[in-house]
């Protein structure tokens, strides 16, 4: 009996040891008081990578977090996470229940992540604690979650799309920045000289996020919504097809470098634009960082709203940006709310918007991410008047991947020879929709 017990006990001891290792290493939230409101608390914060590298972000955020610690006594343990890993890490944290206290999310994920139930809803009390709903720009605040529910995220950095154009190339060709999509197309043709490797438009053709963004923006211009009032996918309406075609046709019409079908990391298309290989670039305002890093001066380029086809709706962007969420199972809810309040305060926004080239999320604040006053005003107007949120439905992330991937494949088809027709596009969108329907 005794002899049999010994190996059994040894195994139990070992299993217990392993389990103990697991639990001690994953308890990352620090050791504060139970309410976690006071000094001595340590918050874990996952920041998304906003600057040109993770180190840059650490350098930017470090002093601000020190400032927060000085004010409140709450220490913040910062981890900057690269974009390719961020969503997966959030999903892993959600499913294991071992996550940070506070984190950044891409605002388009907000409804999908809200549906997981892992994030703290910002109810009236929570909103009060972070300074009230009214301190935010309404369009940005609306991205926090699905309509009719307490949002599970609040805006931190705002971004919108604009049309960057190379002033010198336009002046040399005797052109003015386009005000309709037709003008943009004819300008792009005039500015393209494939033999010199110069094209009218730069494109991040392999990026599914850009693909779905433009499918949505141009679909909106044609009056199409990807989801009907009941939240059901409706990707194949004539407006959606026309919107996707509008984007893909840039490649079909050969005003884009075919190689850019492989661009998918972010800096490639702005790089082409900065180096004078493309005369126009449709990008979010944080492209400024890359353009300057690639040697362009802010006076070398102008920005206008992305134009719509004549007679169509003038939507020029969706409300892009980064939101902040709090994990529901945090032991330091009060401290976390204080931190969110701090990060979204006008004073901090003013500081952080410069290195991260973001628009302020505070209502009434003046953008300061660029010294180019005209550019700042343009982007601010786009956000205030011509931007709509991406669909605020729980299936949003699936919409992004399925439609974005379909658009990428269509662009690839256009680049390798055969220009996709409206019926090709409709078929591709139908397939994306069928996948969503049967997966749901």
């Amino acid at each position, binding site marked *: 009996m005794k002899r049999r017990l010994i190996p059994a006990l040894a195994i139990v001891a070992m299993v217990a040891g392993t389990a103990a290792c697991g639990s001690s290493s994953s308890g990352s939230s620090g050791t504060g008081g139970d309410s976690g409101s006071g000094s001595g608390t340590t918050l874990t914060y996952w920041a998304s990578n906003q600057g040109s590298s993770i180190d840059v972000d650490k350098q930017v955020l470090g002093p601000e977090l020190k400032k927060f610690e000085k004010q409140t006594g709450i220490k913040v343990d910062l981890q900057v996470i690269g974009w390719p890993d961020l969503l997966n890490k959030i999903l892993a944290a959600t499913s294991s229940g071992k996550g940070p206290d506070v984190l950044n999310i891409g605002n388009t994920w907000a409804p999908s992540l809200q549906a*997981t139930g892992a994030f703290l809803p910002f109810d009236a009390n929570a909103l009060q604690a972070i300074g009230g709903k009214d301190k935010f720009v309404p369009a940005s605040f609306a991205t926090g979650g699905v309509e009719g529910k307490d949002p599970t995220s609040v805006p931190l950095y705002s971004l919108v799309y604009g049309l960057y154009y190379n002033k010198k190339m336009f002046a040399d060709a005797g052109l003015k920045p386009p005000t309709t999509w037709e003008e943009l197309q004819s300008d792009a043709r005039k500015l393209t000289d494939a033999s010199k490797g110069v094209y009218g438009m730069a494109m991040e053709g392999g990026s599914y996020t850009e693909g779905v963004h433009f499918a949505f923006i141009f679909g909106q211009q044609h009056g199409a919504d990807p989801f009907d009032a009941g939240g059901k996918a409706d990707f194949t309406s004539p407006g959606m097809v026309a919107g996707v075609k509008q984007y893909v046709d840039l490649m079909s019409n050969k005003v884009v470098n075919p190689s850019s079908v492989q661009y998918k990391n972010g800096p490639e298309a702005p790089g082409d634009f900065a180096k004078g290989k493309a005369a126009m670039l449709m990008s979010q305002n944080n492209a400024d960082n890359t353009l300057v890093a690639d040697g362009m001066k802010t006076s070398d380029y102008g920005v206008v709203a992305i134009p719509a086809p004549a007679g169509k709706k003038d939507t020029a962007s969706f409300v892009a940006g980064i939101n902040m969420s709090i994990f529901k199972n945090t032991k330091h809810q009060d401290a976390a709310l204080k931190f969110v309040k701090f990060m979204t305060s006008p004073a901090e926004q003013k500081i952080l918007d410069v290195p991260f080239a973001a628009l302020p999320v505070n209502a009434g604040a003046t953008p300061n991410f660029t010294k180019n006053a005209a550019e700042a005003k343009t982007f601010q107007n786009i956000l205030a008047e011509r931007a709509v949120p991406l669909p605020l439905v729980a299936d949003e992330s699936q919409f992004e991947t399925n439609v974005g991937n379909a658009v990428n494949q269509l662009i690839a088809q256009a680049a390798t020879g055969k220009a996709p027709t409206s019926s090709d596009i409709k078929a591709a969108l139908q397939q994306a929709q069928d996948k969503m329907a049967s997966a749901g």
Partner: protein
Amino acid sequence: MTSNSTLDRTDGRRPAARRGSPRPGRPRRGRGTGHRLTPYLLIAPAIILELLIHIVPMVVGVWMSFVGLTQAFIANWSTAPWEGLSAYRLALDFSSPIGNSFLHSFEVTCVYTVLVVGISWGFGMSAALVLHRNFRGRGLFRTLFLVPYAMPIYAGIMTWSFMLQRDNGLVNHVLKSLGVTGGDSFWLIGSNAFWSMVVVAVWRSWPFAFLMLLAGLQNIPDDVYDAAAVDGAGIWKQIRYITLPALRPVNLVMVLMLFLWTFNDFNTPFVLFGAQPPRSADIISIHIYGASFVNWNFGFGSAMSVLLLAFLLVVTGAYLLVFNRRSRRA
């Protein structure tokens, strides 16, 4: 000094043994328990780790395939609704778009595996045969051929993805200077993506085949070849009747391992194309990853994983059954 201390130890042991003599049974009993315990203790860490790392996650995966584990439930798995076989029905309904893309992915994976294993074996075998013979510079070639195997997988595949770029890629540059193409081919999109993936996977896999076969060749005695040569057997006959049969046990294991690795290959498409590969290169592991992590449907992803596991088990079982029986007969 050393010898002195050795002597001391030896001397010291004797009295101890003598001291133990009044109770002769004790040491033997201790040794007996130790003997019985030792194997369990030795194997315990392996079993515990195997349970934790393989078996438990596998069981969880199988359970996941029966529940609707979507984004709405990942924060609290236990609330995910029981869906029975519906995820399997979805995967195996080849007339639906999802089932159809799963079937497509399976077909692509089969072709990919056959090509990669076949070509890797061919390369490995040829290289092993050449480098088995003694000649000057043999060591250099052996080392050189093993470089892809020794390199970190990600670094190797990333280098390939740079080489396969359209504008600045080395592949297009070389093809253009040789006058084969205009230098503007796409290698990472469309149907070419499949062939790029095959080339990269062969580059990575064949050194393993080479290494295993070379080791196998070393075990064939030279006398057999000498005798065959005396009997007038040429090089091809020697390979056919001596080398290949002698390498049979090596081949049996190696082909199976290559098959399993290639069929489950995730790194090659993921590093080359990212989470959403072109349709032509949508092999099964990355397809499952897409369903789980891109579309957030972990239940469906698990169902496909379980189907993949079942398929690989059946194939592996059949393979071992057929070939082991034959080798026993032989």
